[in-house]
């Protein structure tokens, strides 16, 4: 019953949902997010066909960052259970990459926590994607819109002053 699972194997959303229902019996709201490899990427404005992604991560650091993201979400949007499953290795077009699930008493916290977790996972968790397709190989970088998504939560925090701001999620960027 790990909150953070990083694995090469694919996962079954139906089975994961059943586990969460069992482990969070008082939940009134469950939000699931699943991210999949889209077959068309719009990197640099060009449509290209992606055959597969190769995902690597920093073992040890990734798990503790993901757990910390969950802990930070829990401070802001209390929930009964949250889980991150993230695949690494080779992932083909249309396959699942990541699942974030949150079970909560009420739907607003479940939605907010799931979004918070995804936004931080995208910009902080030490995963790297290499896209292999018709145009060859390329490492993908952080997207500006993902950075803006995280800034929105930081503004939310400074407006509400509701959670500690200084954590390892807050990176000492220049």
């Amino acid at each position: 019953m790990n909150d953070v699972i990083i694995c090469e194997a694919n996962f079954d959303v139906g089975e994961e949902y059943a586990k969460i229902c069992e482990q969070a019996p008082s939940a009134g709201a469950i939000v699931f997010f699943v991210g999949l490899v889209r077959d068309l990427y719009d990197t640099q404005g060009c449509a290209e066909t992606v055959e597969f992604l190769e995902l690597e991560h920093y073992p040890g650091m990734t798990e503790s960052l993901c757990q910390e993201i969950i802990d930070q979400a829990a401070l802001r949007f209390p929930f009964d259970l949250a889980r991150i499953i993230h695949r690494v290795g080779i992932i083909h077009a249309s396959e699942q990459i990541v699942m974030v699930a949150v079970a909560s008493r009420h739907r607003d916290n479940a939605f907010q926590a799931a979004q918070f977790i995804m936004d931080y996972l995208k910009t902080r968790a030490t995963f790297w994607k290499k896209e292999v397709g018709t145009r060859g190989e390329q490492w993908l970088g952080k997207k500006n819109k993902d950075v803006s998504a995280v800034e929105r939560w930081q503004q939310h925090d400074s407006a509400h002053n509701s959670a500690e701001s200084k954590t390892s999620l807050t990176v000492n960027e220049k």
Partner: protein
Amino acid sequence: MIKVLFFAHLRDVAGVNQVQLPVGEMVRVRDLLDGLGPYVPDSLIEVLRDESAMVSVNHKYAGWDALLPDDAEVGILPPVSGG
């Protein structure tokens, strides 16, 4: 000894997964720029000098001015792209 790990694009630039180097005169993360010199291509050092890479010390994000413990595991991290 300090262990330095390279990931993704920056591993390709470094040409190696990791290097181990003696602590020597290195006090802060920034000092790695000199310390790494003999072990990796100049092109990697140039990237690091831009400071666009992120750095971790013992699995925590760290600034370039952070102190470098004697047994540090340092990660040289390109912009992440998970999810």
